[in-house]
């Protein structure tokens, strides 16, 4: 797939186990950093021993689960921390109420109460903790790319607004973010929170029942998501509720 923007081309190829799947055909101004894919299932709690297990045994886990643990194990970035990154880390620390530390292959949440094993933490908090690690170790920096599959998974809807705030901050700092979501709350928060310093694009993918072809429509706001299956689902529930209330 070749993408052209502002007269410059970038070529991407997709295959299993590809390492270098992005080829910059023309000069590309942007710094290119690390890319990271956060899968739906949180893996930090299962990290101890997982990489050896994955390397030496046939287990039915996709490679992305090993990759995310690799990214999380990257040590802290060298040098002074920028104000922007410090603010983001503090924002996450407020949510998880502590900092993440690593002992051997095990992660802990360290706070005033001590060191809490990750298996004892709610999965949603572990997702925030992973984000904290990726910001702290420089995986998410200007020029890097974040792919996050259904960030809403396991996260209390009341926390989604903070999550979106963090992601918009990262985007404003030059992190390219791709999100796949089925969440009304995530979509609306992006729509409501995006400011002039943000570049947010919505893509609605849909499959034509007759031809089985996938089509994509894009737009700059929530209302440009057409078709919007999430809104359709809420409308259907609203209609069912009205049918029940009106009783006719």
């Amino acid at each position: 797939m070749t993408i052209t923007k502002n007269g410059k081309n970038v070529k991407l190829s997709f295959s299993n186990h590809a390492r270098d799947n992005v080829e910059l055909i023309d000069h590309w101004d942007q710094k290119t950093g690390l890319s990271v894919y956060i899968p739906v299932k949180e893996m930090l709690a299962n990290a101890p021993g997982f990489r050896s297990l994955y390397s030496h045994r046939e287990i039915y886990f996709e490679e992305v689960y090993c990759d995310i643990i690799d990214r999380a194990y990257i040590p802290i970035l060298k040098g002074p921390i920028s104000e922007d990154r410090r603010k983001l880390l503090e924002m996450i620390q407020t949510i998880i109420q502590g900092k993440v530390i690593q002992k051997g292959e095990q992660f802990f949440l360290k706070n005033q109460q001590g060191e809490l094993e990750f298996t004892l933490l709610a999965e949603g908090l572990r997702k925030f903790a992973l984000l904290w690690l990726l910001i702290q170790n420089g995986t998410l920096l200007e020029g890097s790319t974040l792919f996050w599959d259904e960030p809403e998974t396991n996260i209390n809807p009341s926390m989604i607004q903070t999550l979106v705030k963090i992601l918009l901050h990262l985007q404003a700092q030059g992190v390219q973010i791709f999100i796949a979501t089925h969440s009304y709350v995530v979509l609306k928060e992006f729509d409501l929170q995006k400011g002039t310093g943000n570049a947010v694009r919505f893509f609605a993918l849909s499959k034509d029942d007759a031809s089985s072809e996938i089509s994509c429509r894009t737009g700059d706001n929530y209302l440009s998501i057409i078709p919007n299956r999430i809104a359709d689902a809420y409308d259907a529930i609203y209609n069912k509720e009205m049918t029940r209330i009106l009783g006719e």
Partner: protein
Amino acid sequence: MVLEENDILIDFKHVVKGEKFDDDSTHGLSHCMKAVDFIIETDTKILFVEIKDPQNPKAQIKDKNKFLESLQSGTLIRNSLTTKARDTFLYRLGLNALPYISKPIHYYVLINLETLDGAQLLNLTDRLRAAIPTIGPNNVPWKNPFISECAIFNLKTWKEQFPYFQACRKSEKN
């Protein structure tokens, strides 16, 4: 029977009776009791109907903003809409208006704000139902009749749900 509330007209067809209730000249207690805009009696129900029209082209910006703030803060549901329905019920009960005892009372609120989508209307409906409240203490139904159901609509969903109670804007009709 066509009833109007500022710039909104609703044609209540095939009803037993209907009236504009929130009318200072006839209500008589508007200094101390709030009122819903219309009370409609159909064959099977009593409808309390309240109209909110922040998109009225003649609405003052400050009034529109005040409405949006009350919607955002929850006071629209907790104070305004809830009090209007309860006071209307008490007023009618005090007058021993018997149809209100024999027919279930439904409270419908039309908020003419096109940005309210299905998810938000659902949530507002549930919040209003809880604030009235349509169910008595300990989750047990009220023993005496009270407002038994609530629903919130925007103009689009009102038209979809009530093809026989068509609503339109007066200024666009003329």
